[in-house]
């Protein structure tokens, strides 16, 4: 599959769980993290041309409300958040990958 197809599949895997994401950006962040497309908020915002503030908000919800990602480190000056999937986050993609 092409990378675009991989991204679409991963997005649907995360999206179809029925989790109370803040917005459709949530499953896309998870999909991009899973595929290694972007594992920090600023890169994700840049690739998809989104406001960084909104990505940070989504990451906050994914981490603090849903427990699907965890912060590895944070750039104090830019608020850029570097994160990884938690076990719960990884689990969203396990069935698909199998």
């Amino acid at each position: 599959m092409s990378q675009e197809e991989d991204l679409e599949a991963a997005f649907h895997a995360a999206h179809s769980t029925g989790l109370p994401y803040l917005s459709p950006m949530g499953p896309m962040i998870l999909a991009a993290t899973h595929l290694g497309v972007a594992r920090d908020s600023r890169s994700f915002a840049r690739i998809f041309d989104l406001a960084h503030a909104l990505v940070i908000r989504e990451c906050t919800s994914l981490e603090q409300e849903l427990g699907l990602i965890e912060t590895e480190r944070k750039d104090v000056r830019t608020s850029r958040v570097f994160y990884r999937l938690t076990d719960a986050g990884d689990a969203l993609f396990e069935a698909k990958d199998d």
Partner: protein
Amino acid sequence: MTKDDCIKKPSGAAGGWGALKSVGRQLMGTGSPVSRAKTLLSLNQADGFDCPGCAWGDPEHGSSFEFCENGVKAVAWEATKARVTPEFFAEHSVTELQGWTDYDLEHAGRLTTPIRYNPETDHYEEVSWQDAFDGIAAALNALENPNQAEFYTSGRASNEAAFLYQLFVRLYGTNNFPDCSNMCHEASGVALTQAIGVGKGTVLLDDFEKCDLIYCVGQNPGTNHPRMLASLREAVERGAKVCVFNTLKEKGLTKFADPQKKLEMLTGGAEPTSTDYYRPRLGGDMAVFRGMSKVVLEAEDRAMTEGRPPILDHDFIREHTSGFEGWCDMVRATSWEIIEEQSGLSRDEITRAAEMYLKAERVITTWAMGVTQHLHSVQTIREIASFMFLKGNIGREGAGLCPVRGHSNVQGDRTVGINEKAPAAFLDALEKELGVTLPREPGHNVTHAIGAMLEGTVKAFVALGGNFARAVPDSSLVADAFRNLDLTVNIATKLNHGHLMPGKASYVLPCLGRTEIDRNSKGERQMITVEDSMSMVHGSSGINLPASKSLKSEIGIIAGMAKATLGSDVVNWDEMAEDYDKIRDMIARVLPSFGDFNTQVRKPRGFWLRNSASHREWKTTTGLANFGTDDLRDRTEWQEVKGENGKFVLQTFRSHDQYNTTIYGMDDRYRGVYGIRNVVFINPKDMEKNGLSDGDMVDLIGCFDDGRHRACKGFRVVPYDTPYGCLAGYYPEMNELVPHQTVGDQSYTPTSKSVIVKIEPHQSA
């Protein structure tokens, strides 16, 4: 920025980032419905939070805070993991905490539960919300007269919180509304109301893209409103002139590396933010503008004599202004000698600055505390306005007056009624809305509140945010007065010294921060609004989980206090706190300029509150724009101390790691100061003349003659490029030197930019 930033370009990408972006955006925009999902379009609009930092306008609301260093600091400051719990207060007595620095108190972390002071143990102790509300209500209702209570407002409070607060206070029975605006831009409000009929600026952010000259007077945007630098830089890039008048050479006003320009960030590049930079003396801005007006009038005379087209906009002056001839006579009669003496600039320098005005078609003048915190600030702003009237630089595209406000909603708070002498029309509308009679007698501003506290006529002090006791002049004197009060209430996110001056009954009530998610009892997210310096009203809703489950919103706390104090016969406080749309509906009924508030604020970028002066409608006493009527002062503070060895004029200002009284860090890197705040900046020639060396420790002694000894002891001398005879240092530390009796004429703003002091060798005892 590091290279290992996890942007790992995958192998075999057919379409590169562009294709991935396209697919990703389509998926996010058209994916099947998910819980609480919003469209991508709406995500990019008004659903972010407004930066809790400065009040500069936002070109793409909700998306630019991360590019501003101070915005990031403000957000990180709220998002700290540190917590101040009841156990913290059990461990540390109030007396012990009084010995902590402002910085250490702030960095103890977020307050988590309501607390009440126990005078027997000298500790704060946890209290339930209801007990706190009942205790506060009992103390307020026990006062002989509602005017014995002061209700302070910080500029952080949202429109909704501020409106509800003033409802509570006016229904309680007083107009005592000291607020942070009294300490900063009050002079702008007073002067602009006299000159143009509205106490606000007249420009929109878009005007900065269309002007060909900006005068930037007495402000330091690099530290205080960094997003303004982008506007200045863009103006310079497209060929406009940016002419700065600032006592100090501030780094942000010379060059700026825009964080949004990635290449520039990587290469360390920077572009100019100004084209011309002049360094007037403290208190010299009025003389600068008087001098420039003189140059313009002389140029007009020459044009007329030589038969060239006029320079002045005579149509504007004739149709829209009053007092032109009298003001012209005054300008012409002012000698260059006094202009040069007060301004500290030469006639040639002032002429060069004015020649830009002669050539420019569209001019904006901006200013901040460097202009507003002097005895003659109202007169200075009137002079600026008069200068701008000469060529009709107001009420048209790319031109106008722009006082740059400090805290994020200080302008909005005034709009929605935080005003000790609110306009009669506002009170009429409020009475009609509520069906009751409200107090009409003007209440206390900050200066009046301090006076009443020192006289002992105040018994209660309620603070909606802020750090009043540290922000005000004569701070230690005011601190003593606080300890004699019957009641103090502080609504806050973090601990500060204002909380450590308990009266007989004292409460600290922890509230949500601007960045935190605010939900009502049904779990629905609530949105608040703010108004920026350009009169744009934005929605704002938080992104982070609250620091503690026990926190309430400012609105929830106000509603709780109000219900316990007044009952719910006139206002259903619970209903207001449950649905902020209802507060906005009431605001719109009382203030028709908000129109359909709830609909408008949900539009992208919010909406603009109509400003009559922007349409050349003058709600002044004459029905016209009024030229100034004041001559220059006989003597400025600088002139008073000139020639007196060891005496100086001091200005207090912020460090780069500071926002108002909040100390984020101990550095001031633009000025080369690290890890220390007890410093005094001084001209090297003044050092030599007074036998001082770099690093010497000195005491600063206040010279105001009221029998009180004012001193700041143990400050390190830092040689700095400041005008001869002019010192600078940080507040709140140096507020101790600012006499509460010296205030701006008509504005009552503390004269924190013109304090006469002397320097003595440090006496350690």
